[in-house]
């Protein structure tokens, strides 16, 4: 399964990819996580790839995404061609206007509503993705969040993740 997150710097796209990768690793799956970003620390495109498989993985980046998660138009436009014809497109509906079938929600607003922090949008969309695809178990992601987010922010990130998971379970 090839999953690609696309956004702009500052949205936490890479951390979302790392946590998804860690969750897969916790489940004993093979996983490769890579990223591509511009030199700008904020505002440039930011792409995180996660490839998960029971078999050895030789790919170094997503070649044909099964799932593309787009959090910003710039990120989406940069990599939209990498999504398979029948792939799943998940978008931040306030910020991305795709020209093809998709699902999604206003993830940034959901983040603000659940935690008061727009920057938890990455955890919200991760929750949504896990609910929609079941690529890894919810518990594995929660464990990965505890391991990977800055100390003291575990609860707020878990809260955002659960809000996204709930939205995706609707």
């Amino acid at each position, binding site marked *: 399964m090839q999953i690609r997150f696309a956004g702009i710097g500052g949205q936490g796209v890479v951390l979302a990819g*790392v946590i998804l*990768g*860690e969750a897969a*690793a916790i489940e004993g799956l*093979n*996983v*490769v*996580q*890579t*990223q591509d*970003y*511009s*030199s700008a620390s904020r505002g440039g495109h930011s792409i995180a790839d996660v490839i998960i498989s029971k078999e050895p*993985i*030789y*790919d*170094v*980046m997503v*070649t044909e995404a099964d799932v593309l998660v787009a959090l910003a138009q710039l990120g989406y436009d940069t990599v939209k061609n990498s999504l398979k014809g029948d792939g799943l497109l998940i978008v931040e509906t306030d910020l991305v206007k795709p020209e093809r079938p998709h699902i999604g929600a206003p993830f940034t607003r959901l983040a603000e509503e659940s935690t008061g922090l727009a920057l938890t949008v990455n955890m919200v969309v991760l929750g949504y993705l896990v609910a929609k695809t079941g690529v890894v178990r919810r518990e594995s992601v929660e464990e990965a969040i505890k391991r990977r987010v800055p100390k003291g922010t575990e609860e707020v990130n878990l809260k955002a993740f659960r809000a996204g998971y709930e939205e995706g379970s609707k």
Partner: protein
Amino acid sequence: MRYPFPTGKKDFIQGNEAIARAAILAGCRFYAGYPITPASEIFEAMALYMPLVDGVSIQMEDEIGSIAAIIGASWAGAKAMTATSGPGFSLMQENLGYAVMTETPIVVVNMMRGGPSTGQPTLPAQGDIMQSIWGTHGDHMLIVLSPSTVQEAFDFTIRAFNLAEKYRTPVVLLGDAEIAHMRERVYIPHPDDVKVIGRKLPESEEEHKLPFGDPHGDGIPPMPIFGRGYRTYVTGLTHDEVGHPKTVEAEIHERLIKRIYGKILGHKEDIISYEEFELEDADVAIVSTGIVSRSAIRAVKMLREKGIEAGLLKLNTVWPFDFDMMEELAERVRKIYVPEMNLGQLYHLVKEGADGKAEVELIPKIGGEVHTPMEIVEKVVG
């Protein structure tokens, strides 16, 4: 000894982090560096870990100072490492030659990015293959290893230290920006399960007094530790077995340089490591090293599905190069393809080795992306 990271289990980490942890498990206790993309995380990890294992990690004024510091640390008895990328690796060339000439065990990590000059800081490349072998001036010999996975980045770092110590030589670990930042599951062994080799120390008065001698006939002089025993003279000038400069005597220069060549080329079987995939009955062979090998393995599988008998020779050791093995391969196959992320470097070594016994074709790619398997397949299918 308690280690500041979990051992005896798998972890999900970046290549740079794997290199730092491996260095510590291999016994590295001195790190000097200067930050540079895409190698900075090695320094960050070393800055975090070294104080916890009674080691030292220092930021130097630049890369020239960094390699100078690890050479000094090595003579003081420490296993030492620095890490950089293209621009910093260029600055290190002078002292890399000094480490060759003074037979100083050090590990220099070069995570390749697009060049020349500052080039493409965040993107992977393989443009420094020739520089890692021949970047410093003069006749010289060293060892270059190149990993293709995060696990190999870990394993080859341990091997780099062991080879550096065993052969009293600088070893270059040649990674790239992709391996540097890629996260994969890596098995971090329990420290008791890590094979660690230390340098030969002088055991007699004579060996102490001849830090550049060859008492065992293997070309590898026992290395004294500064401050323990006799005064030792260490110089980049051509020197005799005592270490004193002898700059005009042809036979002394020839004996020294040939010994430095010989201690590595005479142990090629121990040093050179490679892996074969589906090569036994292959009609066409792909020869690759580093990150591109991943796409090459996939390409071999895709070609086999198309009925083309393809195989892969993946070089874990880039230098020394086994020209004889390459000639034998060329005698067995019709054609050899060399995919690499530059405009032709490994290709020239392969072609020299093949010696006309098989056609050799370069599959070059620059700009910052690893070849896709399909790009290799399309070249082979034609």
